[in-house]
């Protein structure tokens, strides 16, 4: 394991019942880098993302083979608490999903459950919202419902909520697919900022987004990892013909 790898996947197979969704995946994710997972629908990229913080545990009849090491520790080992893993490996989903609570309480909900003292909460709220570049827009309406925010603001709130747990890794599952171009640009800008402190793994259908914001890109097809390389390489001269066909729109 290279010193800079925060997550290492070794020979992972994943099954939904009898259906194998991922086949023999081995790859590493580098610390403080943005890695994009791309591929057509059903290729396994979101499945892989959800494996990284054990979100697939919540689906009945699923089975994992192989190892996923987070900072050298297998997150699927029996003694590991999935809740602990999800605290360290946060997630942001496709559609913004704020709690139907105030903006303030959206941020404090998780930390409170984790025993952060009340005195520390206001500072944590401000810090998280600043990191998500939302503070200036909401600092005067913290007691208002998060549901009143725009889609783009709600998504940044969800990022702030994930950051409040002080994770090491942030998983993003098509975080801008429901957003307009301006909100998308803000989230992309935010990702660039966040990678200084966090490792980010993002699933996206938007090729240009992957090209713009990621350092590494992994291309999946039919549950296989076809090519994993520097983003610049993938989008200018990929090594594998299948990757070239997909990113240039010659698929199917």
């Amino acid at each position: 394991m290279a010193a800079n790898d925060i997550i290492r996947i070794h020979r992972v197979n994943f099954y939904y019942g009898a259906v194998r969704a991922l086949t023999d995946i081995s790859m590493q994710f580098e610390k403080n880098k943005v890695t994009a997972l791309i591929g057509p629908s059903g290729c396994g990229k979101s499945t892989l993302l959800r494996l990284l913080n054990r979100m697939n545990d919540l689906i009945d009849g699923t089975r994992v083979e192989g190892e996923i090491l987070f900072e050298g520790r297998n997150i699927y080992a029996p003694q590991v608490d999935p809740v602990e893993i999800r605290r360290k490996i946060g997630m942001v989903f496709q559609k913004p999903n704020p709690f139907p609570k105030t903006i303030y309480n959206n941020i404090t909900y998780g930390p409170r459950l984790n025993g952060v003292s009340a005195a520390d909460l206001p500072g944590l709220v401000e810090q998280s919202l600043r990191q998500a570049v939302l503070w200036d827009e909401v600092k005067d309406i913290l007691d208002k419902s998060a549901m009143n925010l725009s889609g783009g603001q709600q998504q940044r709130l969800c990022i702030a909520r994930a950051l409040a747990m002080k994770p090491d890794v942030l998983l993003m599952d098509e975080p801008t697919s429901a957003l307009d171009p301006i909100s998308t640009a803000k989230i992309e800008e935010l990702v660039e900022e966040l990678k200084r402190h966090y490792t980010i793994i993002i699933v996206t259908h938007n090729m240009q987004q992957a090209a713009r914001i990621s350092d590494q890109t992994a291309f999946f097809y039919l549950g296989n990892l076809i090519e994993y390389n520097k983003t610049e390489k993938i989008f200018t001269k990929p090594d594998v013909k299948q990757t070239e066909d997909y990113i240039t729109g010659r698929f199917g």
Partner: protein
Amino acid sequence: MTAEGGLAMQEKHHTSLHFEKELQEIKDGLIYLGVLTEKAIQQAMTSLEARNAELARQVIREDDAIDRLDSEIEERCIKILALRQPTAIDLRFITTAIKITGHLERIGDMAVNIAEKALQLIEEPQLKPYIDLPRMAQLVGDMIRNSLDSFIRGDLKLADQVRRTEQAVDDLNEQIFRELLTFMMEDSKSIHRSLMIMQVSKNLERIADHAKGIADMVTYMVTGECVRHRTCPAP
């Protein structure tokens, strides 16, 4: 890579047939531009050898068509960059096409330079029979044709051949230079004509540089590697 390589990498069609058509139009445009520039060089050289002023003037007039086609191809490429955001082979194809059209346009300008020198040389008695210049023009014409064929077929071997031919053209240019130097030393009345002929030779040599530039871009398009500033490959 397939035996054909290069653009044959694009044998699988785009999901967007419009995009496919736009790329094909650029290819067609470049082939036509290549035909026009090669013809311009041939005519410019014929005007010099046959002392045909009208043909030389025709080359100068027809350069407008080359310039227009160059602008048109460049605009098409820029439109694709803006609207299609091409990647991988498409990106390399478009960047190569932009460079090639620029090279061809400059080649057209050099054919005009040769035609202008021909017009001046026609006004004076012929200094000497032209032997090396037509050979040089022949090599240069081959280089343009081969460089464009290598582009269309993605043929790396042909691109290498173009780079090797450039050396032969350089050698001829040197030889012509030395020969004319002796003419000038022997007879000062030959200086003006010698300088004109030297410039014709220099223009042919620069056309060969442009053809090599096209071949280098073909290598980039096929392999993703930039070979522009490397030395000539061994034969």
